[in-house]
């Protein structure tokens, strides 16, 4: 399989000269099996350029099918969908997968994004066929030859991590999530930052432990882990309730699951290219000191990784 990064930024797009190398578009990763339809994880602004590339191929003739796995519906993960060119060509089929809502149809959640007064083209006016499928955590399903699994993460309003296995390789996408230690993030708004390191209610602690164990279990045997590392440790201490992790949190998951390769992802909007170089270097130094042998990369727009049977 081929894994390509189209948007690596968190929260909000960040144009400008300080993000030219890593890129300023929000979350979007393409997982392309050796044969079969493209699988896209998240629909941030990076999706726009992927859509243009797809429209130059079979999607330009209305003969394409794409599958879009949505981690969660915060804006930085769905903003690109109305700018996805294949949706504007009759005959194309786009399947969107996201966590099933308790009291709302998934289509309604996405339709609001493009309804008046937010956008000029409502979902019902799109030429392509657009279908939504609700997922529950722990669910497993297939997309062509690919096996897909999901488990929940620790993020406000709940996010899903995905694992895709195809062509003899497995990739896990885990964004966005806080570490599973200081606060349980679900549906309540948390106004005051919790104190990092303070004891939790036993029930919350058990839930977080279960959540982490399920994620580690899902990562076991994967070749690549793409992980939300938006925060520095200091930023995390200030905002543990925002639902993001540090590189050390990501390394701990990779280590516990035995994943050989970690990709830092969902970079903070204000983090400059030079600062990201330093984050990556510090993370690699930590790995050398710990002797775990994990290979660490920092995602950038245009990064392409070939895994499994196609691997060089």
């Amino acid at each position, binding site marked *: 399989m081929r894994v390509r990064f189209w948007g690596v930024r968190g*929260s909000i797009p960040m144009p400008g000269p300080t993000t030219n190398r890593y890129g300023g578009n929000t979350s979007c990763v393409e997982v392309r099996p050796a044969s079969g339809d493209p699988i896209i994880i998240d629909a941030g602004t990076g999706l726009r350029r992927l859509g243009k590339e797809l429209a130059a191929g079979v999607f330009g003739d209305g003969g394409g099918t794409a599958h879009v796995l949505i981690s969660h519906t915060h804006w930085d993960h769905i903003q690109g969908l109305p700018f996805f060119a294949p949706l504007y060509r009759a005959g194309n089929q786009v399947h969107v997968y996201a966590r099933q809502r308790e009291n709302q149809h998934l289509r309604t959640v996405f339709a609001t994004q493009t309804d008046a007064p937010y956008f000029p083209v409502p979902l019902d006016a799109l030429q392509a066929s657009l279908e939504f499928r609700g997922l529950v955590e722990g669910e497993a399903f297939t997309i062509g030859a690919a096996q897909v699994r999901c488990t929940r993460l620790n993020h406000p309003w709940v996010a899903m991590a995905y694992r895709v296995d195809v062509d003899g390789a497995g990739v896990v996408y885990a964004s966005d999530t806080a570490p599973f230690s200081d606060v349980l993030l679900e549906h309540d708004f948390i106004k005051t930052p919790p104190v990092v390191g303070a004891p939790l209610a036993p029930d919350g602690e058990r839930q977080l432990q279960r959540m982490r164990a399920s994620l580690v279990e899902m990562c076991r045997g994967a070749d690549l882990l793409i992980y939300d590392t938006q925060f520095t440790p200091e930023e995390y201490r200030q905002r543990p309730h925002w639902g993001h992790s540090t590189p050390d949190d990501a390394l701990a998951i990779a280590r516990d699951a035995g994943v050989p390769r970690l990709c830092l992802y969902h970079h903070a909007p204000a983090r400059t290219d030079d600062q990201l170089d330093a984050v990556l270097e510090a993370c690699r130094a930590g790995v050398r000191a710990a002797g775990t042998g994990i290979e660490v990369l920092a995602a950038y727009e245009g990064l392409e990784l070939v895994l499994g049977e196609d691997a060089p």
Partner: protein
Amino acid sequence: MKIRFWGVRGSIPSPGPDTNRYGGNTSCVSVRAADGTLVILDMGTGLMHLGNELLAGEFGAGRGHATILLSHSHWDHIQGLGFFAPVFVGGNAFALWGRAGAPGRLEVALEGQMNPNYSPLYTLRNLGATFTVHELEVERTVEVGPLRIRAHANPHGNTTALAFRIEEDGRALVYASDVGYPEGGPSAACVAFYRGAHTLIHDTTYTPADQVARRARGFSSYEDAAAAAVTAGVGRLAMFHYDQDYGDADVDALRDACRAALDARGGAGIELVAAAEGLELEI
């Protein structure tokens, strides 16, 4: 008045090396009156960068207040609000003026933006600053400090977007983003609204060729902007709201073509600037 551009892009932010010079952030312009009164035009992603600068002054201490004029509530004009640092500082106060079809609908739209499905903020009530939403009646003058402000509803695809006229000491700035005129060009009322402006910030999303292919979307070409500027007899035209697919070289070409269009229409005396992030203009 001092004007500064914080976001000049239309539809969706367009990061990348080919937008470094003009910028990839969506619509946001700040206007400062001589006495410091602050008016913000639209809340695209450029608003985040304005907010970071404002924190260094009274807004960092919770003593800032500003008026926000919202042309319409399409995403590229409201996305910056949740990332505007001064709204999280208690004591600051923002009065937003705009309209969205029916009374009360604008506040619902802004509230919907913060809905937990889309934003970790959940609701406007979680902003630390005072943030009030007001319905702006078109063609009626509102006074904000020394500024006299009036709005006009322009056609924008299947909806309308407000243009704003801001006057201080008899000199006027007009902001007209997101406007797609009918075949015959701007209405007489619209031309009267722009008439004699010192500076007209006008939608120039497209080349005429791209505009023809996308007319239903409700944006202007540089030809439309040049025609409006000449007809209304403005002193300076500032090109604004560039298509997300245009790189810096494309915008350079757009500017040169707009200059030629002004000259050809008898507007050789009109100053032309292509708005870019960080550009400051004085009126």
